[in-house]
C-alpha cells in the first residue's frame, strides 16, 4: 500500500488549468532546454530535435542530423551583446557527434564527429567563450568549433556530469570520483587553453549521479547510494556530508517494510537543485530539503511520488516542482511549520477514496513533519497528470507555463487557463480592430 500523499481533485492553488499536447517525437523525450523567453528545444531517443514556441505550442523546427539518441543538449548563445543575439544549441548524440544548430533558421551550423566515445555532457563556459564536452575524455572547444585541448583518456564509463566552478575550474563526475580540472591560457597560442587535472576527490562510495553548483563558494554532489556532499568550490574540501539521511533514525514512525524495501535504487540522489540557502534533492521516491546553513535536512517528503523522482526544480515563489517515473508532476510548497493542535485523525483511511480530503492529509503530513523535528514541511499544492509514462524532465517557463516531457513520446505544455483566456481575448480584440470590425462603416 502506498503512503504517497494525494491531493484529490480540488486544487485551488494549482494554476495549470489548460494543457496542450505537443506531438512530434517518436521515442522517449529526455531533454528540454530553454532557448529564449518563448522558445525551447526538446530532444530524446529518436535523435530528432524539435524547436517549439512555448506560448502557442507551435512547432518551429524539426532538426534532423543525429542518427542515434541524443545524450546531451546545451544552449549556446553568443555572448556578443552588441549584435543581434544569435541563438545556437549544441547537441551530442550516441552516434559520437556533436552538432551546432542555429535556432533562428533551424539549420545545422556545424557538425563535429571526431569523438572517440559518446559525449555524455556538454557545458558552455560563457565567461571564457568556450564549451566543454565530456565523454571518455574532456575536450575544450571554442566557438568556431576548433578543438583547443583535451585530457587524456579518463575512463570508459565517461564523464557523467560537469559543472563550472570559479577560477576557470570545472568539476567532472567520473564514476565514484570527482575530478577538478582547471583551464589555463596556453602560453604558445593567443586564444588557446590548456586543461589540467588539479584534484581528484574520492569521497563518494558509489557513482556520482548529480552535480550542482549552489553559488560561487559551494557545490553539491549526490551519489547513487544516497550520499550528499557539500563541497567548497574554492579549495574543494568537504564542507558537509549527509549520508543516508533518508532512513535516519529520526523517523520514529517509519514502517519496517519501507526500510526493507529500500533498495539502493530508492536512495540514489537522482537530481539536485538549489537556491541560495537550500539544496533540494530528489532521493529515490522522496524529496529532501537540505539547509546549507543549518547543515541538516529541514523538510522532507519521504514518498513524494509512487516511483523515482527524476527531476526537481525550485520556483521563485517557494514552490517546488518534481516529476517522476510514475508519470506525474507535483507542485509542492515549502511552508513554515505551524504549531497545530494535533487533532487525532484516523489517517490512511481516506486515501482509498482520495477525494475531498486534501486538508486532512495536509494536516497529517504536517503532523508527521512536526514529529520529524523539522521546522518546515512540504505541502502538496497540486499535481499534473497527463503523461502515461515516466516524466523525464520539465522546464519552468514562468508565466508562460510548464513544459514536461515524457517517455510516452509526448511533450505537454501546461498553462494557466485564466491567463490564456485573457490573452485570447486580447488577441481577439486586436483582430477585431485589425479587421475593422469595431469601426462603424
Amino acid at each position: 500500500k502506498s503512503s504517497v500523499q494525494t491531493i484529490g481533485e480540488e486544487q485551488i492553488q494549482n494554476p495549470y488549468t489548460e494543457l496542450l499536447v505537443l506531438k512530434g517525437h517518436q521515442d522517449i523525450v529526455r531533454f528540454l532546454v530553454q532557448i529564449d523567453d518563448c522558445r525551447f528545444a526538446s530532444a530524446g531517443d529518436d535523435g530528432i530535435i524539435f524547436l517549439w514556441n512555448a506560448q502557442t505550442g507551435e512547432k518551429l523546427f524539426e532538426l534532423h542530423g543525429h542518427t542515434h539518441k541524443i545524450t546531451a543538449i546545451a544552449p549556446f548563445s553568443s555572448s556578443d551583446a552588441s549584435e543581434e543575439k544569435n541563438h545556437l544549441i549544441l547537441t551530442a548524440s550516441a552516434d559520437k557527434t556533436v552538432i551546432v544548430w542555429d535556432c533562428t533558421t533551424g539549420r545545422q551550423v556545424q557538425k563535429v564527429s571526431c569523438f572517440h566515445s559518446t559525449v555524455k555532457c556538454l557545458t558552455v563556459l560563457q565567461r571564457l567563450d568556450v564549451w566543454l564536452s565530456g565523454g571518455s575524455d574532456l575536450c575544450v572547444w571554442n566557438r568556431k568549433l576548433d578543438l583547443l585541448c583535451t585530457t587524456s583518456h579518463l575512463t570508459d564509463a565517461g564523464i557523467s556530469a560537469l559543472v563550472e566552478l570559479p577560477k576557470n575550474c570545472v568539476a567532472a563526475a567520473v564514476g565514484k570520483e570527482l575530478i577538478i580540472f582547471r583551464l589555463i591560457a596556453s602560453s604558445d597560442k593567443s586564444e588557446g587553453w590548456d586543461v589540467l587535472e588539479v584534484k581528484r576527490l574520492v569521497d563518494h562510495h558509489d557513482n556520482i549521479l548529480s552535480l550542482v553548483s549552489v553559488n560561487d563558494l559551494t557545490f553539491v554532489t549526490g551519489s547513487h547510494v544516497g550520499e550528499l556532499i557539500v563541497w567548497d568550490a574554492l579549495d574543494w574540501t568537504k564542507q558537509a556530508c549527509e549520508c543516508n539521511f533518508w532512513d535516519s533514525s529520526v523517523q520514529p514512525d517509519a514502517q519496517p517494510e519501507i526500510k526493507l524495501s529500500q533498495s539502493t535504487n530508492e536512495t540514489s540522489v537522482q537530481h539536485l537543485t538549489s537556491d541560495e540557502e537550500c539544496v533540494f534533492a530528489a532521493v529515490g521516491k522522496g524529496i529532501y530539503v537540505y539547509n546549507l546553513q543549518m547543515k541538516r535536512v529541514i523538510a522532507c517528503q519521504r514518498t513524494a511520488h509512487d516511483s523515482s523522482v527524476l527531476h526537481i526544480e525550485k520556483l521563485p515563489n517557494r514552490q517546488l516542482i518534481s516529476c517522476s517515473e510514475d508519470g506525474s508532476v507535483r507542485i509542492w510548497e515549502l511552508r513554515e511549520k505551524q504549531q497545530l493542535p494535533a487533532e487525532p485523525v484516523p489517517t490512511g483511511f481516506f486515501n482509498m477514496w482520495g477525494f475531498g480530503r486534501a486538508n486532512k492529509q495536509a494536516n497529517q503530513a504536517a503532523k508527521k513533519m512536526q514529529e520529524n523535528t523539522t521546522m518546515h514541511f512540504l505541502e502538496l499544492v497540486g499535481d499534473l497528470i497527463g503523461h502515461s509514462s515516466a516524466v523525464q524532465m520539465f522546464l519552468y517557463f514562468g508565466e508562460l507555463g510548464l513544459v514536461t516531457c515524457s517517455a510516452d513520446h509526448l511533450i505537454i505544455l501546461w498553462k494557466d487557463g485564466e491567463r490564456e483566456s485573457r490573452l485570447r481575448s486580447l488577441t481577439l480584440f486586436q483582430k477585431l480592430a485589425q479587421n475593422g470590425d469595431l469601426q462603424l462603416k
Partner: protein
Amino acid sequence: MISAPDVVAFTREEEPADEPCREPPLPEEYSVPLCPFAGHGANPWAKVASSKFSRDFILISEFSEQVGPQPLLTIPDDAKVPGSFDLNYFSLRIMSVDYQASFVGHPPGSAYPKLNFVEDSKVVLGDSKEGAFAYVHHLTLYDLEARGFVRPFCMAYISADEHKIMQQFQELSAEFSKASECLKTGNRKAFASELEKKLKDLDYTRTVLHNETEIQKKANDKGYYTTQAIEKANELASVEKSIIEHQDLLKQIRSYPYRKLKDSDFHPYEPECALDQASVGSDQDLATSDLAEPGETNPYSRVPSYTPKLIKAKSAKCFDKKLKTLEELCDIYFFTQTLDQLHQIERTFRGDVCYLLTNQISRALLKQQSITNFLFEDVSFLGEKAPGKQYRGCRGLSQDATDRKCSEETPAPKVVISLGSYKSSVECVPIKMEQDIEDPQEPAMTESITFEHQENLDYLDADIKGSISSGESIEVLGTEKSASGLTKSESQASLPISPSPQVGRSKVGSRRTISEDSIEVLSTCPSESLIPEDFKASYPSAINEEPYADDEEGGLRFTPKLSPDNADEQEDGSNLENLAQVDSACCIGKESPNFLEPLPSLGQKLCDEDGVVRIPPQPYRQAEQGLCGSFASSPHHDGALGGLLPHELDSRYPAGGREVSRTSLDECSDSTSYISSAASTCSDRTPSPAHPACLANERHKKKAGQNALRFIRQYPFAHPAIYSLLSGRTLIVLGEDEAIVKKLVTALSIFVPNCGVYAKPVKHWVTSPLHVVDFQKWKLIGLQRTASPAGVNVLHALSRYSRYVSILDADSKTLRCPLYKGTLVSRLADHRTQIKRGSTYYMHVQSVLTQLCSKAFLFTFCHHLHLPITDREPEESVVNRRMNFLKLHLGLANEDIKIVQYLAELLKLQYIQEPGQGVNPLLRFDYVPSFLYKI
C-alpha cells in the same frame, strides 16, 4: 381550475413509433380534443382536404398545335401521385392561362421570320373545386416544324396547399426558372443543330435542283423554258429563300443573349444531382436512373455525320406529321439535367409549408450568426446550397405589398459588420402571431385580402397597364361561381382572359409585357368561401393608397407592426431601461439605452391563449428592424456592444418570469410536437418533410433527439452529465454492450459543442485505453468495458485521468462527475417534459443552445469584460465586472457560468484562428471534485 401543463398532460398524444403500448383511455371529460380534424388525421393547417391527389407534384404540359393542351409527364413519375386528379383537365386550365404565347413569324417590318427570346411567364393558379393550387411556369421551346417555330409548354407545381404556393412563390419561381433555363438551353442547342441539318438538307436540295436545271438547260437549248423548268427555277428560288431564312434563324438562335448565363447563381450545366444520391424512398430508382442517363448519353461523344436529305417541295401537312416529343426537342443532356432539377424541386418543396418556412427562417437566422454557428449547428446543413437562399423571396404574398413598402421606405440596414450581423436569434425570431387566426373564416379572409389587394392593382391596371404590368402585378380573374357582390370580378369573369393578353399581343415582337413577376389567381372559388360583406367593406378602400390602415376587419394583416409587438416593445423598453439604470456599475448600456429595440420573444409569440399554434410561421423578412439597425446606428463600438446587452439581459427569465417562460416554452414545444405528430399521421398527404441533403441528417436528429429524450427521462442524473458536455469536460460512456453505449453516445451528442468547423468531437466506440490526447480531441467517448487484462488497463487509465472526465457507467447506471447546481440544463433537459417526439426535442435543444450561444457571443465580444478600460485598472475589477455580467446580465447561476465561459473560449479560439491553420486543440479543465450519482 386546471393549469395549462396539467391539461396538456392529458391530451392525446401520438406515441413514438416504437412504443406502441397505450395508456388506458382517459375518461371522456378529461381528454382534450386537440384539433377538430384530429380524427381524420388531418393537418390542422390544411384547409382543403378535398384534393384528389395525395401529394404535391410537378406536371409538365404542352399546348399541342394538333390536339390542344395535354399533360406530358409528372414528377414524381408515379401514377399514384396524381391519383384520380384529372391531369387533362388541369392541363387545359394551366395552358389556358398562357395567353401571352409570343408571336413568332413574320413581323410586319421584317422580311424574315424572327425568333423571339421570350421571358417565361409565371402564374399562380387556384382551383378550389379540385382542391389544387398551382404555380405555373410557361415557357416556349423552338421547333422548326412547329407553327411559328414555337411550342408552348408549361411546368406546374401542383399542391393542395394554397399558402404553400403563395408563400413559396419566389422560391418556386427561382427554381423553376433555373429548370426552364436549362431546358431552353438544351432546346436552343437542339434547335440549332436541327437548323444546321435543315440547312444541309436545303443546300443539298439546292445542289440537286441546280444540277437538274443545268441538265434541263443543257437538254433543252430551244431558247424557251418549259413549265417544268420554270417550276424547277421557282423551286430553286424558294429553296434559296428558305436557306437565307434558315441561316438567319440560325444566326438568331446563336445570338441568344447569354446574359443570364453570367449570373452567378445560374448554372444550367451544374449537375445538382450529387445530393440526390442520398435521397431515399420511392425516388431512389428514379434518381439513379436519371443519374445514369447523362453518363451514357454524353452529348459530346457522338457527333453524328449527317447525310443530307432531299427536301420535297411541298412539306407534309402539319397534321400529318408527328410532332417532336419534349425529349426530342431538347438536347438529351440538358433534358436529363432539367428532370433532375425538377426532381430536386419536388423534393425541396415537399411537405408542409410550415416546415419549409421554419426551415427558411432558421436558415436566414443562422446565416446571421455566423460566428457562433459552428458550436452547435450542423455545418453541412449550413454549408449546403439552400433553395431558400433568396430570402427576399420568402415573403408571403399577402404581405408582399406591405413588405415592399416597408423595404422601400426603410432600406434594410446593410450589415457590414460581421460582429453586427449576429442576431440573437432566440429573442428575435420574427414569428408573427396574427390576431385573425382565431377567425374560423381565416382562409376566406386571406383570400379576400389578396383579392382586394390585387383588385387594387387591377384597378390601376386599367389605366396604366403597361407600366404596372411590367412590374409585379397581381391579377384576379374571378370566374363563373364567384361572389355576387363582386362586381368587378364579375365583369372580369365574363372574359376569362383578362385585358392584358390583348395588350400583350398588340406589342408584337417585344418581350412579354407582363414579365417575370406577374402573379395571377384564377379562382373558381365556390361562393361559400367568399364573403361578400368583406368585399363590400373593404373594396372601396382598396382604391385608397393606404388601403387597410383604418380597416378594422380585414386590415390586420396589413398593419406592419401588430399591436402586441408594440406593447412588448414598450414594456421591454421600460424594462430594459430600468435594468440599464440599475446596472450603472457596469460600464455598458449607459450611453445609449434608447436605441434598444426589443424584439418579440419566442415564448410569448408562439402560443396564443390555448397554447396551440395554429398558424404557420410567417416568412422571415430581411427588412426586420432588429439588432442590425440599432447596431449600425449606435455612436461607437463600446456603446454598441453595451447596447446589445440588454437584449440579452434575459430579464424575463431570471426575474421571476422564468417559470412562466419555461412553461410557455414547454407548451409551445409541446404543441409543435403535437402538430408535427398530427402532420405525420397524415403522412400520406405530406410525405416526410425533408430537405434532400438533410434526409439522413434529419433521421439522425430524430433518432438522437429520441434517445436524448429517453436518456433524460431514464437517468435522474442527466443534468450533471449534460453539464459536463456543455462545459467541455469529456464524458465517457462506459459499458459492455456496444449498442447501448452507442445509443447513449448518440443521445448525448446533441449537447456537445463543436470545437471547430469540423466534425463533432464525438467518438462512438473505443476499446483501447485512453490518453490525454483523446480528451483533447474528443468530448464524448463511448468506451468498452471488458473483463480481460486489457480491460483492466482501460479502467486504470480512466481512473488515472479521472480529473479530466466524467464517467457514465451504462452497466451499473452510475455517473461520476462534478456537481451541477445551475438552472440552464434543467431548461434544456427537463425529465418531465411533455415533448414526445425526438425531432421536436432536438429542435427544443437546438433553440435553447442557440440562446446559450448568443449569451456566449455577448460575453466573448464585450471588450470591457475581458480587458481593462484604462491601463491602470486592476485585473480584479475586470474580473468583478466579468462575473457581474455573467451573473446579473446573463442571468447565469453557479455552474452555468462555466458553460458560457467554455463556449466563449471556443468562440475566441475559432475567431482568432488563422485561416488555413487548424485550431490548436487544447484541453481546458478545472480542479473540481467529482461525485458519484446513482439511480
